[in-house]
């Protein structure tokens, strides 16, 4: 395939949105208030919408009559490139908001850079999505503060979530071979350069939320290389169920 790096680069971005959107989709009708249910569904919808744009573009590059659905549903677990952070389970609402916030801060920085991509399609997708992502960040950041600075119970729960999820943040800034190639060409974002600003912003919100900054310097990585957590297989079993069970049909 020509443009293999671009193809892989796009999948990396798309998979993050797909998998996070899928996780949020599990919660629909099970949230703590009707308002959070609506907002969570809305964010899920935005993310699914975004990943469709990416997959459609990747499918065009791939050729072979591939469709967005082939890419979203018919790869093997080891071929999904999303970061470990977004596949983490909905343990409780603190995890849901913590995961969202830790991703959103990255996501907005990423989209802001992607706006400048020499690839017009990617720049256009970023332009379309950036307002959504900025809303996501405000929503999740507000909830991190509310839970962190709410009751003793909510503070403990939010702290637990931040401590657990923190370990997946560093991977956001790893550069795969495709990332490096695309950054060098001015198409992709050099995410390694976002790291300091990310930790600065995240730390400020965490402190404002009356939470302790996690001290651990150990981080877990693997998703970008397709080595996922044990949660991922179950998520994919559901995600892919229809496409695997009824192959080659239209819906």
């Amino acid at each position: 395939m020509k443009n293999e790096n671009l193809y892989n680069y796009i999948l990396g971005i798309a998979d993050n949105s797909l998998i996070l959107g899928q996780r949020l989709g599990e919660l629909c009708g099970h949230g703590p208030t009707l308002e959070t249910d609506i907002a969570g569904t809305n964010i899920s919808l935005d993310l699914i919408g975004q990943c469709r744009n990416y997959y459609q573009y990747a499918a065009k590059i791939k050729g072979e009559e591939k469709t967005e659905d082939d890419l979203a549903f018919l790869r093997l677990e080891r071929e999904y490139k999303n970061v470990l952070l977004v596949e983490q389970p909905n343990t409780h609402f603190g995890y849901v908001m913590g995961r969202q916030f830790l991703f959103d801060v990255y996501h907005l920085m990423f989209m802001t850079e992607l706006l400048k991509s020499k690839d017009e399609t990617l720049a256009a997708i970023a332009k379309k999505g950036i307002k959504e992502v900025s809303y996501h960040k405000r929503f999740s950041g507000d909830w991190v503060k509310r839970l962190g600075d709410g009751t003793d119970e909510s503070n403990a729960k939010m702290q637990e979530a931040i401590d657990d999820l923190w370990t997946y943040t560093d991977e956001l800034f790893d550069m795969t071979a495709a990332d490096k190639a695309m950054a060098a060409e001015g198409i992709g974002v050099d995410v390694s350069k976002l790291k300091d600003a990310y930790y600065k912003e995240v730390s400020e919100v965490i402190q404002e939320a009356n939470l302790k900054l996690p001290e651990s310097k150990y981080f877990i990585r693997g998703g970008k290389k397709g080595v996922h957590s044990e949660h991922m297989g179950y998520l994919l079993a559901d995600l892919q169920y229809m496409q695997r069970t009824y192959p080659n049909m239209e819906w």
Partner: protein
Amino acid sequence: MSNEQIKNLEEIFEARIARDEKIEPKDWMPEKYRQTHIRQMSQHAHSEIVGMLPEGNWITRAPSLRRKAALLAKVQDEAGHGLYLYSACETLGVSRDELYEQLHSGKAKYSSIFNYPTVTWADMGAIGWLVDGAAIINQVPLCNTSFGPYARAMVRVCKEESFHQRQGFEIMLKLCNGTPEQKEMAQDALNRWWWPSLMMLGPTDAESVHTEQSMKWKLKRKSNDELRQQFIDQTVPQADILGLTIPDPDLKWNESKGSYDFGEIDWDEFWQVVKGHGPCNKQRMKARVDAWENGAWVRDAAMAYAEKNEAKKFKKAI
């Protein structure tokens, strides 16, 4: 107030309704009117939020990204409908927490149809096509009901429901134009949802309560049996377009009355489900109660945070 004064107010009130004026929350209204509206609107709101569950069941397994997005949007709309309707209830002086309490304790009802399981993807089509179809037939007349907030909520709800109904039909159409497995899936969904959809229009007129009063207040404009007939007459030709067979051997066109005759509804099943013993009653209620109980700490936190911030603002101000 003396009985006479009340009677006087009631007469003015009924006259306003008769003139098709809208009653607004701050207007005087008979206690029974208030209670009836709280009951009906909250039942409708509960149906929307319980109704999120059978469809929510397929979000993670939707067969394409396009369908996943559409399903998310649909379920989100339902949550939105719940929200307007709870708000409309609140204008009558009942809190959302009280209404939830009624739902969770089993005191309040919701539409029985949501106590059936969604077992295949085609059920997403059948629910849109049939369940939303029946819902619209129930709801369109309510766009002109006497209580203003309810009437206005229903205008918006009906517009969205009608979009959902077309979307459901389109899912069915795609299946029916697809592979034999897909068509079979569509037929199977119709087989399972047909009779419960007919039951959605309510018990036969002979068994129905509240009807006369509801007619006067424009909470009801046709009887259950009339609505059911309307639903059948409208849906059978749609099934023909799909090439699906309505699972009723007694269904046939009656030239003389200009509508369809249809078979006996299994009212025992209807009452079993209404009384809480349907396939998913317990599961639905458990899902709602779990969501509510597991979310208590979140709501408490939000409240505590808001209070602290009020206090901070106040401190800054002085």
